[in-house]
């Protein structure tokens, strides 16, 4: 009983996964460019900034989606 059940469930799931893999293969770009790699500052040793240095960097303040000010993109006249 366990054998039959595992065969049925796993192959059903596998069929869905293979189908979805084909769909994603057709729709997603194969190799997305890594923008941050290009912009990342490089030190003399050829490495990016360490974790400690990155923490000190000021992050741009972006409000959460929930508290976006009204009329941001379409201000009232």
């Amino acid at each position: 009983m366990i054998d039959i059940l595992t065969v049925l469930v796993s192959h059903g799931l596998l069929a869905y996964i293979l189908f979805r893999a084909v769909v994603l293969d057709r729709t997603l770009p194969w190799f997305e460019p890594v923008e941050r790699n290009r912009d990342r500052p490089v030190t003399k040793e050829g490495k990016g900034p360490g974790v400690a240095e990155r923490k000190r960097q000021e992050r741009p303040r972006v409000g959460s989606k929930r508290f976006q000010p009204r009329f941001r993109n379409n201000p009232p006249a």
Partner: protein
Amino acid sequence: MKDAFFFLFALGIIALGISAPFIMTLGYMWASLLKPQVLSYGFFKSIPIAMVFALLAFATYALIDRRALPKFTAVHALLVLWAGWITFTTTIAQFPESAWWKWDWAFKEIAFACFIPLVIRTRVHIEAVLYVLTIGTVPLVVSAGLKAALGGGGYGAVPLVGQSNVGLSESSTLAMYATMMIVLVVFLRKHTLIMPRNWIATLAVAGYIGTCLLAAVGGHARTGLVTVAVMAAAFWWYSRYKISLAVLFMIVLAIGTFFITDDWIQRMETIRAPTSDESASDRLAIWGWTWEYVKSHPLGGGFVAYIANLGHIPGNDYPRAFHSIYFEVLGEHGYIGFAIFLAILLTTVKMDWGLYRRNRRNPEMAWVSDIGRALMICMAVFMSGGAFIGVAFQPMLYYLVALTISARACELRMLDASRPTFPQYAGRLESVRQRQPTTGLVKSRVG
């Protein structure tokens, strides 16, 4: 009924594979790991399904999909060398008939591992392979775990599907494979694109990990305990949440003690005193014999050379297998074969380590870093568990090696895609970008 089910499933894969050739490769991996013809009893048994998928994979690649070759790596070169060397040692084998029988399937696995990186190129492809490895073998791994939970387990007492004691149907091999699957499913849970990431998926993953643990430990195979310990240590070492993980492991261990039987403890204690156990002391005797054998046969005795130990292992009136990937390779392919095999293992681990180290601080490449780490832990599990079972030519190792090459090639292609299309204008583009901040442009227009 089972035959018809597997036949229809295989037909479905072929139908999908015509539109996307990488699916044929996944079909081969499914057939090679699960061996559906062993699980069936009727007409499907006579169909060489792995060969059909292999031929279709080659054909669809050559006719439809031949593009974007991966970079030729050292691991690729070593695989080709390895395939050549095992062919040479088979020509001088001590037992040619048996040797050619094993060469036949071992060579196919290595050749297909060389082919996989040509077809498996993108993140989605790699993820689909991981799903075939984890979900495709559920009838073996999860059913063994569930049976161990319901029936109490025991060495050789868990009735595995197929009952052939070959491939993943062997208790120790299954224990090692189940441990590897835990590592891969943790990666998939974090980075999957194919499956949704919701609470149902989390529950399914938790259940899968639980049954994998039961399959690894419940079969009473000592290899299972060793591999689970190595996996837990590796997870802890690479985790950012060391204290939380240590607490989680303690909880799992505490729950596990309720299910541990005296038989299990007695069997595991033989790891510390191997001479007290017949099976363990036999292994020591076989390894001692192999060490002496290779001194007189420096090029190895060819595949299945262990037949020569008939009468040399005390208390055994039949030849005993090597029971270790290292002694298997040493006895069969000599010092040179051993060096090539070790080079494949170490180069793959080094490549995985590189994938992890180079990308761990880049959030956009986090999946590359994590797959490098997952493959590295799988290799550590294989190298530790393989010390006690002869699986040097089983497909799982070669799939890990092929996935490593694919992941490295994917990393390189993503970086290539980030570079400007015309390198001769790269410097000029950069200077234009620097001279053209938004405010400056606005000012000049206003002025």
